[in-house]
């Protein structure tokens, strides 16, 4: 089923220079720039020391040893020892210098990503699968740390070495030097062709890893369905298909890499061979001393590793550039509150809050990713919940009730009209303040990996133990919580004890009421409760609702009876407001929704209203 890539459209890679992508890492690297530059310097020094050691060896053999000079031998030995210790120290120092700083760069980038993701609008998360975001926060960042640790330093060190080597070669014998440097032009051309192809493949492979991650995630979250339908083999097939694709991409990458590696081996070697022939002829002709030729060629051979390493250094740099692209692709999405500044500035003009309850005026909403031409989910909702009043929101399945509740805490922003809390437009309230005024219980209760008490306390940090117990009592959760192994200190959520749907729902309700919020938005909060428990919760909830302005999505008469008035949502508008009894008498659609009988004609298209039962029955006959 998930054999197809489900990436949001924004993830289409735009051609960008790898250097520019990598330069964007600078703000994160800046704090450790001294250490990083120091490490590069130390690496150059270490390489230099490494080059000195053979010279000392040569001097020792040619000089003191040949002359049987004991003092000179001890001096040379001592010098060798010193240089050796220096070299070892510098090598160790380089790694020591970057070890913690680079780990901290990786951690800082990951923390920034996490922080950013938490503040991106919910609409963003609707589009992006968790796996794709996770792979950016893990494999991509690990790659970037590796890039900073090795390829970056060695591109520099090897670059310097190659330049110095070339200079030495040209000064030693410029004709031979030119022969050796001849392959540079084709190498540069081939490398840039390789780079372009490789970065496309690297991007594809990284995205495929993201898809794999998404599939793993889904296969765990949906494990009950997979097991229930015996689909684990099919799921494994889908996964295998994805791993085959990834393998194909990786093999394509390997082909490209193999080709460029081959070229990087052949071209310089051929040039060295040519220089050898040419040099040998010149030595034979007496134009060149044999010693110079040997020195020349050993320099050329010493340059072999720096040149050969360019291939994989480029490959890693390329993959890192893609990783950086993928990272910044997410980081560049503006967070939800970025556009708030101007609205907040206007807030001063809005005046002090006056108790006015919750008011929706001409509220229109369409999902940002809704296809063009589709009607908005909400088109002109007018509704006023008076201070202290409880309003039930009733509507057919899919009429937009849940969407409407998500607008109040600004999980989505209205696309037209306005919502005010006590007369203040929610667009002019800082999100934090808004969300401290409004508490929500969602249709699907999500518990986090924490203790039961901590999960409740998320609704109001200032609440104390008594507050938690009170909230648990209101939600009728105190009994089952007390029966948990460590009572309210029992770990629940994904990494803890798994609770039943009804238990989760009651904890989520306790979370919503614990902070005694001014405004309460409850989305079908009692759907998973049995009749007795529901009745007890309702009785306790009534006390809370007496002093709270509340909007409650309701599917059943029992829930509706918690409310002072009821609003009927139909066709994206509020079509009727009144008491339960009033609406039962006056609205056929309402009566239908509350009893399941009577005409369903008024139900809007798109609702899961029953098709003609006779026809349905006939069609299911097998």
């Amino acid at each position, binding site marked *: 089923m*998930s054999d197809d890539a489900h990436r949001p459209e924004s993830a289409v890679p735009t051609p960008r220079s790898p250097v520019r992508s990598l330069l964007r890492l600078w703000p994160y690297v800046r704090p450790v720039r001294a250490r990083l530059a120091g490490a590069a*310097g130390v690496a150059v020094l270490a390489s230099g020391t490494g080059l000195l050691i053979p010279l000392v*060896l040569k001097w*020792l053999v040619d000089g003191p*040893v040949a002359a049987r000079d004991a003092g000179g031998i001890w001096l*040379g030995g001592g010098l060798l020892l010193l240089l*050796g210790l220096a070299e*070892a120290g510098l090598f*160790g120092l380089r790694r*020591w210098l970057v*070890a913690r700083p680079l*780990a*901290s760069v990786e951690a800082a980038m990951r923390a920034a990503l*996490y*922080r950013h*993701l*938490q503040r991106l609008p919910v609409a963003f998360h609707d589009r992006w699968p968790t796996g794709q975001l*996770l792979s950016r926060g893990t*494999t991509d960042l*690990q790659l970037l740390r590796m890039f900073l*640790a090795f390829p970056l330093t060695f591109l520099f060190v090897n670059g310097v070495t190659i330049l110095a080597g070339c200079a030495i070669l040209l000064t030693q014998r410029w004709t031979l030097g030119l022969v050796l440097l001849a392959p540079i032009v084709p190498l540069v051309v081939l490398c840039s062709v390789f780079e372009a192809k490789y970065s496309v493949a690297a991007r594809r492979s990284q995205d495929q890893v993201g898809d*794999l991650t998404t599939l793993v*995630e889904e296969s765990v979250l*949906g494990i*009950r369905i997979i*097991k*229930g339908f*015996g689909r684990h083999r099919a*799921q*494994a097939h889908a996964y295998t298909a994805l*791993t*085959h694709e990834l*393998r194909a991409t990786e093999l394509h990458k390997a082909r490209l890499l193999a080709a460029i*590696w081959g070229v990087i*081996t052949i071209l310089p*070697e051929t040039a060295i061979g040519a220089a050898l022939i040419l040099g040998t002829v010149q030595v034979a002709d007496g134009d060149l001393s*044999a010693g110079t030729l*040997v020195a020349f060629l050993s320099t050329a*051979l010493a340059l072999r590793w720096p040149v050969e390493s360019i291939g994989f250094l480029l490959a890693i740099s390329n993959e890192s550039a893609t990783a950086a692209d993928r990272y910044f692709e997410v980081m560049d999405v503006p967070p939800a509150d970025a556009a708030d500044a101007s609205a907040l500035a206007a807030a001063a003009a809005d005046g002090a809050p006056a108790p006015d309850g919750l008011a929706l005026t001409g509220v229109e909403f369409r*999902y940002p990713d*809704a296809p063009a031409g589709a009607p908005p989910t909400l088109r002109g909702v007018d509704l006023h919940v008076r201070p202290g009043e409880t309003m039930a929101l009733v509507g057919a399945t*899919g009429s937009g009730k849940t969407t409407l509740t998500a607008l109040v805490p600004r*999980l989505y922003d209205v696309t037209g009209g306005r919502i005010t809390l006590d007369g203040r437009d929610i667009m002019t309230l800082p999100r934090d303040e808004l969300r*401290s005024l409004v508490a929500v219980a*969602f249709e699907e209760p*999500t518990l986090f990996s924490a203790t039961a008490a901590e999960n409740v306390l998320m*609704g109001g940090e200032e609440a104390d133990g008594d507050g938690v117990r009170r909230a648990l009592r209101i939600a009728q959760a105190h009994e089952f919580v007390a029966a948990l192994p460590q009572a309210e200190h029992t770990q629940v959520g994904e990494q803890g004890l798994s609770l*039943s*749907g009804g238990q989760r729902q009651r904890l989520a309700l306790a979370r919503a009421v614990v902070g005694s919020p001014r405004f309460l938005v409850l989305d079908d909060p009692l759907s998973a409760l049995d009749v*007795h428990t529901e009745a007890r919760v309702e009785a306790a909830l009534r006390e809370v609702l007496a002093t709270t302005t509340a909007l409650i999505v309701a*599917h*059943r008469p029992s829930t509706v009876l918690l409310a002072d008035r009821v609003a009927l949502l139909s066709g994206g508008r509020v079509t009727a407001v009144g008491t339960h009894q009033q609406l039962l008498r006056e609205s056929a659609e309402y009566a239908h929704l*509350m009893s*399941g009988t009577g005409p369903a004609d008024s139900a809007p*298209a*798109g609702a*899961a209203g*029953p*098709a003609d039962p006779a026809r349905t029955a006939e069609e*299911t006959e097998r």
Partner: protein
Amino acid sequence: MTTTTTAAGRPPEDSDADAATPPGPPAPGDPFDQDVLPTPKGASLALLRSLLRPYTARGRLTVVLLLLQQAAVQAGPLLVAYAIDHAVPALRAHDHGPLLAVGAGYLACALAAGALQYGFTRSCARVSQDVLRDLRGRIFRHAQALSLDFHERYTSGRLISRSTTDVESLRELLNDGLQELVGVVLSIVYVTAMLLYLDWGLGTAAVLSAGPLLLFIRSYRRRSKRVYARRSTAIAAVIVKFAETLNGIRPVQAFRRERPNDAAFGRLNRVHERVNGSATLEMARYVLLSRTAANIAVAAIVLWGASRVATGSLALGVLAAAVLYLRRLYDPIDRLGMFLNAYQSAAASLEKVAGLLAQRPAVPEPAAPVPLPDRAADRPGREVTFSGVHFAYRTGGEVLPRFDLTLAAGKTVAVVGSTGAGKSTLAKLLARFYDPTGGRVLLDGVDLRDLSTTDLRRGIVMVTQEAFLFSGTVAENIAIGRPEAPRAEIERAARAIGAHDFIAALPEGYDTDVRKRGGRISAGQRQLVAFARALLADPAVLILDEATSSLDIPGERAVQRAMHTVLRDRTAVVIAHRLSTVEIADRVLVMSHGRIIEDGTPSELIGSKGEFASLHEAWQDSLVQ
């Protein structure tokens, strides 16, 4: 570099000290909590071996290619020497033969080195990609085969960590490690042989100097093993938190959890940062120690050799050559370190993976499945028998005391009772999400444990209140139980349950991707999709666990009406808080504290003034107001 002095403020001892401190206080008890599942000794190595076994031939080819490639590369200096020693004099004698031979030889070596490099890279990638694909598949298939109670504790984040970051570290070992190791071994063998050939004394000294090096390598292996194991755990913890936040982004934002989450994530992230840094520092320590030892050895051997030359017991030329080789002997120490690094990291990861693979499914598939007896055409559904069944969670705490129960074929049984009464556990035993602690669950007389997965799932399907949708189209989601079902049947199932209208109204109807543009589906609609899914699968036994909790009343009524026909020719177990379902049930079981306290037809129970009668009355009250 003046900048280094300011940054290098902390003494190195500090970093070594914290490498030995465990991250955070040791959590007591559960291996799941600490992400350290028991791994049999040597399991990670056995895993690696079994992964490589199918590719032995290609692996050998890869090593041969690498050996040849190294030979071609090493030939260069020899040809240089030959050119100077032989080609120059020959040329002076107007003999171009040797020069041409050198030129041809050099060109051949260059081409061979390049071609072999190409072949090796591709061959190596083939092996490593095949191994990685196999490993990914093994992890995934194994995880899918493990039972629910495993997944309830292991979390998706850890599984993601196993199949991404842990697989990645094996990739590093296979891609770069092999080349490093073969290169190092070749070079050491070659150079040692040359040294021994040149002079027994010097050669033996060089071999002896390997002693301290081996000690350093051993100590590095021991220390880094701990660090890498901790790192693998630490990154998994980071991933778990990351995934949990993203999956619960709505409550996170609505309850302003961003800042507390930043702090909590920051703590996990810092643990990983410390241990990540410590891993690099272990490497720094190894490089420092091994390099120091190597360079001291070089200095000592040179000094000894030089004094022997001075006393005349060693030829000068031999010393010169030996000295050059000595340098090259110790050159690959760093590369050996890199290999060890990759190896340790991969070993730690493989250990975690092996721990996962060592988990046995608590609900295993039978080795010799027993086929279900054929269903007579006129016989509706299948009979379900609970025979002496009791169930307790692994951690203790009995959920269902011993009971016997037979559900007649073709009948609909409603199970009611308060939350936590054990209704869902009963359903999960019947769906074989768990196996009973004692006793047997039989389907038409066959123990569920003896049924093949195919038979079991054709026989029994369960619809729960959590209606998860997979990425893909609505049609694909409905067809999960029968992917080959034609569109007409998918639509018929959707129509039967009253889901067709809303699906048809989606932007692309049945082809709407549930995760893409406009594919927003409410909780009630998801339950309808889940229902259609179950209908299409056409099982003999259908279990509905709170499957209508998010539907509105008309939706529920439509489902009720549909169920009259849908349930007619199958056995059904319906768990519902809403008693509307009971209207269609032939029999009602009332459960309390894991026991069945009432059992009878709805009308019998309503008349009996028991628990069910009171539930029914309360429900009636809640409706008629």
